[in-house]
C-alpha cells in the first residue's frame, strides 16, 4: 500500500467494481493471498527444473526464454497421459453448479475463485492450443493466448485452491476440479514456480522421511518426551517401539502431530492406545523413524513427486516385515493412499489383507492398499467392546466434528469418526447439514497453503467452516472442534482464534484416550492437556440425568 501513488489511492476508494468479464479483468497479486516462492535449494534437492530466487511481486519472474513452449509441451504430454485431464478440459458445459460452492470464492469474494473460472484459466489455453474451434474462433469459443499475465494468473489462483473437491460434489459431470488444480500446479512446476511451503517440506521429506526434516533420533526424542508427559498425567509408562522387525503393524502418521499442539495430544493418544492394545491383547504396533511422515506434499507438486514420497510407506513395511499398515489421523495422506497409492506403487502383494487381530474384522476397503485408517480401526474395537471407556471424563467438552475434506470426500469416511466420538464423549452436536459430511467446508489451508504469509487467504477461505462452528457454539455452547487431519489441527486454532475464540481444537484420539481406562493408571485428575477432569460427584444432578449414558434412561 505504501507504494501506491495518489491517483491509485483514489482509485482504491472507488465503490464501483470493474464490469468486465473474468478474462478482461486483470489479476492483481495481493499481499496476504499468496505464499512465498520456493527456495531454489529445495527445488534443486528434488531435481526439479529451474531452481532460482524469484519474487511473485516483481515483474520479472526470471522465466526461461522458452517458457511458453515448455508449458504447451507439458500440457500436450499430460493430455495424452491423463485421460481425466483431457475429459475435464472438454466436457464442462459451464452450468455454474460449482460456482458458489468454493469456500475461497465464498470467503474472498473474488470471482476468479469460482471453480468454473479456475478451470477456465486452463481451459481457455487448452482451447487455443489444442482444439479446432478455439484455433479458428478464438475468444468466441472461449479461447485465449498464453501470455505472461495468464501464467501469473494461473500461479495466483492455482495456489488459492485447497484441492478440497467440494465443488466436484455438485458437478453434474463429476469433474474433479482438484485434479485441474493439480495439473495447473504440475505445469507451473515445469518452470520452477512452486511455493516454498510446499517445496521445502517435500525436499525435507525426500531427504529425511518427513516434512519437518526431523532426524530419526529427534523423532525418538519427541516420542520419549511424550511418554514422560503421559506418565505425568496417567501414571503409566508407555514404551513405543521403533523400526521393530516382525511387528504386527506399522503405524504411519503426519509428522506435524509430533511437533505442534494440539496435534501432539493426538500423537500421545496413539501411544496410549497402542500401549493399551499391547497390554490387553498383545498387539505389536511399531513406529518408523524413516517412514516418519504420513502426509505427502508431493500430491501438491506433481504426480511423480507424490509417487516418490509415497513409496517409502511400502518400502518400510516390506523391510520390517509387518502384516499391514495402520495410518493416523491425516487428511491428504488418505487421498494419496485411497485414490493413488495402489496404482502408483502397488500392488503391495508382500503385505497381508488387513484383518483386525483383536476382533477378526476384515477391512475389505483396504484389501488392495493394505492400509487401514486408525479411526476405522478404533471404531471396530469399540463396536466389539474391546476398549474400556469412561466418556464422562470428557464431560467438560461440548464437541462438534469437522469432516476433514480428504477422509470425507477422498475416501468416503463419514460415520466412523462420529461413532467413535459419541462413544467417548457425552456431548456431541452436529453442524448444519450443508456444512458436514460430503458437503463439508474446507479449513481453508489445505493443499500446502498453511503458511503464515497467506493468512488473509486462510482466514477468509476458512470463514464458511468457522461460520458453521459459530452457529453450534452459540446454539449449544460447543467448545471443542474435533477433526481427523493434522493440517486441520495446525490451522483450525488460528481460524477459531479469529472467528470463534471460544472453541478449541482436538484430534479424535485425544478424546479416545481421555476416556480410555488404562490398566494400572493412577486416579486421573487432569487430561493430557493438564486440564482438570470433571468430577462426577460435583456434577449438577440435572446435567447428570440428561446425559446420553445415564443408565436410568
Amino acid at each position, binding site marked *: *500500500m505504501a507504494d501506491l501513488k495518489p491517483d491509485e489511492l483514489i482509485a*482504491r*476508494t*472507488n*465503490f*464501483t*467494481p*470493474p*464490469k468486465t468479464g*473474468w478474462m478482461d*479483468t486483470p489479476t492483481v497479486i*495481493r*499481499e*496476504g*493471498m499468496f505464499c512465498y516462492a520456493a527456495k531454489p535449494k529445495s527445488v534443486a534437492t528434488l531435481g526439479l527444473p529451474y531452481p532460482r530466487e524469484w519474487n511473485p511481486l516483481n515483474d520479472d519472474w526470471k522465466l526461461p526464454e522458452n517458457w511458453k513452449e515448455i508449458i504447451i509441451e507439458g500440457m500436450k504430454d499430460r493430455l495424452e497421459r491423463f485421460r481425466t485431464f483431457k475429459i475435464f478440459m472438454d466436457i464442462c458445459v459451464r452450468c455454474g453448479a460449482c*460456482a*458458489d460452492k468454493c469456500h475461497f*470464492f*465464498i*470467503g*474472498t*469474494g*473474488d*470471482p476468479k475463485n*469460482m471453480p468454473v473460472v479456475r478451470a477456465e484459466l486452463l481451459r481457455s489455453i487448452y482451447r487455443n492450443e489444442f482444439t479446432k474451434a478455439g484455433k479458428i474462433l478464438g475468444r468466441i469459443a472461449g479461447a485465449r493466448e498464453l501470455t505472461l499475465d495468464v501464467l501469473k494468473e494461473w500461479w495466483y489462483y492455482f495456489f488459492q485452491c485447497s484441492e478440497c473437491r467440494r465443488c466436484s460434489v455438485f458437478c453434474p459431470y463429476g469433474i474433479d476440479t482438484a485434479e485441474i488444480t493439480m495439473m495447473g500446479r504440475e505445469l507451473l512446476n515445469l518452470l520452477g514456480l512452486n511455493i516454498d511451503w510446499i517445496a521445502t517440506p517435500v525436499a525435507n521429506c525426500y531427504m529425511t522421511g518427513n516434512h*519437518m*526434516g*526431523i532426524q530419526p533420533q*529427534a523423532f525418538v526424542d519427541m516420542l520419549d518426551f511424550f511418554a514422560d508427559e503421559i506418565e505425568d498425567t496417567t501414571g503409566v509408562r508407555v514404551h513405543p517401539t521403533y523400526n521393530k522387525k516382525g511387528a504386527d503393524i506399522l503405524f504411519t502418521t503426519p509428522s506435524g502431530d509430533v*511437533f*505442534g499442539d494440539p496435534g501432539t495430544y493426538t500423537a500421545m493418544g496413539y501411544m496410549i492406545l497402542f500401549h493399551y492394545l499391547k497390554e490387553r491383547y498383545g498387539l505389536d504396533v511399531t513406529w518408523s523413524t524413516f517412514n516418519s511422515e504420513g502426509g505427502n506434499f508431493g500430491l501438491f507438486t506433481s504426480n511423480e513427486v507424490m509417487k516418490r514420497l509415497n513409496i517409502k510407506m511400502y518400502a518400510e513395511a516390506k523391510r520390517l516385515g509387518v502384516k499391514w499398515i495402520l495410518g493416523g489421523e491425516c487428511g491428504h495422506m488418505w487421498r494419496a493412499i485411497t485414490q493413488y497409492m495402489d496404482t502408483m506403487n502397488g500392488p503391495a502383494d508382500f503385505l497381508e489383507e488387513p484383518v483386525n487381530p483383536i476382533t477378526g474384522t476384515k477391512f475389505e476397503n483396504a484389501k488392495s492398499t493394505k492400509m487401514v485408517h486408525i479411526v476405522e480401526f478404533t471404531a471396530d474395537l469399540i463396536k466389539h467392546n474391546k476398549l474400556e471407556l469412561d466418556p464422562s471424563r470428557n464431560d467438560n467438552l461440548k464437541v462438534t466434528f469437522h469432516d476433514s475434506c480428504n477422509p470425507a470426500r477422498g475416501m468416503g469416511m463419514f460415520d466412523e469418526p462420529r461413532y467413535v466420538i459419541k462413544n467417548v464423549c457425552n456431548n456431541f452436536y452436529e453442524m*448444519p447439514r*450443508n*456444512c458436514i459430511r460430503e458437503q463439508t467446508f474446507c479449513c481453508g489451508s489445505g493443499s500446502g497453503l498453511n503458511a*503464515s*504469509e497467506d*493468512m*488473509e487467504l486462510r*482466514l*477468509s477461505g476458512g*470463514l*464458511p467452516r468457522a*461460520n*458453521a462452528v459459530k*452457529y453450534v457454539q452459540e446454539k449449544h455452547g460447543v467448545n471443542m472442534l474435533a477433526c481427523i487431519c493434522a493440517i486441520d489441527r495446525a490451522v483450525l486454532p*488460528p481460524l477459531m*482464534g*479469529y*472467528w470463534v475464540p471460544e472453541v478449541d481444537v482436538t484430534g479424535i484420539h485425544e478424546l479416545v484416550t481421555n476416556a480410555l481406562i488404562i490398566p494400572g493408571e493412577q486416579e486421573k485428575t487432569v487430561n493430557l492437556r493438564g486440564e482438570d477432569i470433571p468430577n462426577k460427584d460435583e456434577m449438577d444432578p440435572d446435567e447428570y440425568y440428561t446425559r446420553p449414558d445415564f443408565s436410568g434412561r
Partner: protein
Amino acid sequence: MALNNLLKQNKDTIVKKWLTSTIDIYPADTSRFMKGQKDPFANPVGNTLSVNLGPLFDELLNEMDCKAITSYLDPILRVRAVQPILSSSQSTGFIFLLKNAIRESLKKELSDKNILKELLYFESKIDELTLIAFDIYLKCREKVFGIKANEERNRTFRAFERAGLLTEIPADGPGL
C-alpha cells in the same frame, strides 16, 4: 423529529438500498451470488450484511448504544479485514453509502428545509458510525497480524527445539 419518523416509515426501502449498494462494491459475479443465495451457511458474507445492517440503522435512529453497535459492526468488519479484494476504504466506507440510500429514498421530503437540517445532524451520526467501523476494522487487522506473528514465532521456536538448542527448566529442579 420529523426525519426520524420518515426514516422509520421508510426503513425497509432505505436498508435494502444500503444493502444493495454495499454488496455491489464486490465484482458483479460475487454480488449476484451474495444477493441471490439466502442460506446463511452457503453465503456467510451476504448473510452477515443482511442480518446486521437493519439493526445498525435502528441504532442510528435511537441512542447509538456503543456496545450494540459494535456487536452489529464487528461481524461485518471482521469479514472485510480478511478480504484484500476490497481496499481499507471500501471495507469501512460502505457506511457512507447509507447517506445515498436515504437521499435517494426521501428525495421529495428533503425539499423541506427543516427536514434537511435534521438530515445534516443525522448524517453526522453516520460519520460517527464510520469512525467506529474504522476502529473495529483496524482491530481485526491487528488480530490478523498478531496471528501471523504468533505463527512465525512458534515456527522459530520449534526450529530451535528441533535443533536441540533449547532446554526446558525442569519442574523439580533446584530453586534459586
